């Protein structure tokens, strides 16, 4: 029991500690693909360190939401790893608090508060960023629900652990068209949710920014918390994508310390594969006009529908 609690804490610590590394690897690889030097894979850690040692500047128009939003967003990202298989393939204490939908709800709550904070200070960029983020969320949400419906039809359950076990035990299900289409649909959602759609360029502060626009008013430790929260969100979504859908192998069965460490290493190895795909898509896909943002989402919706249709067999 104590071991399980420790493992659960270990899951959360893994997400906290490794999420900046994942971000650093993706950014470094993108720089390398564009034949630039890059700042090194440890740069996000240095950024966070720097921001935590700076003084915060608060806009005069800010209300309490400005203070609450980063803390709530960070807390939400600390909660979700408890619900999903990060290191072990068996449920740990308190992981029955919510199923996949519950995890999605908490992730969206953090994003909702950041949206409110963007509107709170009344700056033009915050408003633009918030309205764009909400527009994308409105379009992404039906697809997300359909993907969950597809997963439920596939595994007859909404718990991520059940889906993981099913895919490991039955290769026929793993290679079935229903599952492959779900993977494709979720991959597009992953690009949307981690702010890597092909509609804004890789430098972040510019006219077409979406997520950066919402947090433009923040500085110092609060900005560090928000940045860390968004990196953790990316890490969590990668975890769901890898450990539940794409590569369900390589998790700890027994829950020993060595197994957990190995699982953490394996998880990061899997993420490197996904990050490679993401970097490839971001580099190979030409930038679209901003108002074509709905096309990838329509494609993702379609793939989710096809996954549900393909479930008819079986």
């Amino acid at each position, binding site marked *: 029991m104590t071991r399980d609690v420790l493992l659960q804490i270990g899951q959360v610590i893994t997400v906290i500690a490794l999420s900046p590394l994942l971000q650093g690897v993706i950014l470094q690889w993108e720089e390398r693909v564009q034949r630039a030097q890059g700042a090194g894979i440890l740069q996000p850690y240095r950024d966070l360190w720097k921001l935590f040692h700076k003084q915060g500047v608060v806009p005069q128009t800010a209300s309490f939401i400005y203070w609450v939003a980063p803390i709530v967003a960070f807390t939400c990202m600390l909660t979700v790893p408890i619900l999903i298989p990060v290191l072990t393939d068996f449920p740990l204490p308190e992981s029955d608090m919510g199923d996949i939908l519950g995890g999605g709800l908490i992730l969206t709550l953090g994003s909702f508060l950041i949206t409110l904070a963007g509107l709170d200070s009344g700056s033009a960029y915050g408003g633009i960023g918030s309205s764009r983020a909400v527009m994308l969320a409105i379009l992404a949400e039906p697809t997300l629900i359909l993907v969950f419906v597809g997963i439920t039809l596939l595994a007859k359950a909404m718990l991520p652990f059940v889906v993981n076990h099913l895919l490991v035990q039955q290769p*026929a299900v793993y*290679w*079935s*068209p229903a599952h492959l*289409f779900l993977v494709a649909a979720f991959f597009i959602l992953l690009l949307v949710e981690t702010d890597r759609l092909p509609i804004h360029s890789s430098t972040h502060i510019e006219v077409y920014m979406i997520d950066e626009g919402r947090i433009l008013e923040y500085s110092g430790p609060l900005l560090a918390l928000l940045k860390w929260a968004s990196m953790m969100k990316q890490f969590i979504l990668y975890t769901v994508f890898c450990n539940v859908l794409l590569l369900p192998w390589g998790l700890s069965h027994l829950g020993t310390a060595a197994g957990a460490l190995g699982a953490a290493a394996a998880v990061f190895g899997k993420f490197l594969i996904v990050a490679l795909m993401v970097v490839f898509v971001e580099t190979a896909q030409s930038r679209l006009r901003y108002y*074509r943002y*709905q*096309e990838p*989402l*329509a*494609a993702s*919706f*379609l793939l989710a*529908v*096809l996954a*549900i*249709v*393909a479930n*008819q*067999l*079986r």
Partner: protein
Amino acid sequence: MLAAQLGPLAASLFSLMAIASLLLAFVMLGSRWLTDYLIAFAVQSWLIACLSAAVGYYGHYPELYLIALLTALFRGMLLPYLILNIIKRQDVDREVHERLSPSACMVIGALLVLFAFVVSGHLGQSLGLTGTVAVLALTVMLSMKLIGFLMLVVRSEALSQILGLLVLENGIFLGSQILVPGMPLLIELVILFDLLVVVACFGVLIRYLLAHARTSSAHDLRRLVG
């Protein structure tokens, strides 16, 4: 019925090909350029040819190999070639003009697929075929027909309309290959030549429209001529 008694490997092979051709129908629905569209159509036809060869192999219908060959030659090569020729020679616009944006079309198409899913689910239940390839083939057939109709509705150019018609026909052919594989050879041949006649007629029609009305878009044809 063949589709109800397939092994798991054959069933997954069939379902993969059927779903892939449905995906290609969506590629056609979402593409902006006629050449992309024609490539997708050709690939879809080759997939259907593979599918009829597979049905012939698993169901022991030797004449289906001939059908597969003819499908690949006619639908996969000759029809796209003829349509490309029409585009080149008649100087028709290469961009597909639609009344709805591609993404709206795709979402409507996805809803149509869901409709087909529900309908074929009910049909399969009443026939006792739930969970077999037959139901999936029925879904793919119905949804490809509906997508073909959608293309006919949202696109006004004469050339785009024949492409919608071809998708519709491909859907029916795919469904018939899986659902009733023992059709007489003659009917299949008649269908193939029918298509050839349709494309030829449309070529003549487009030439006529361009010569007399100076447009091949149904949008601009508003005046009745006695």
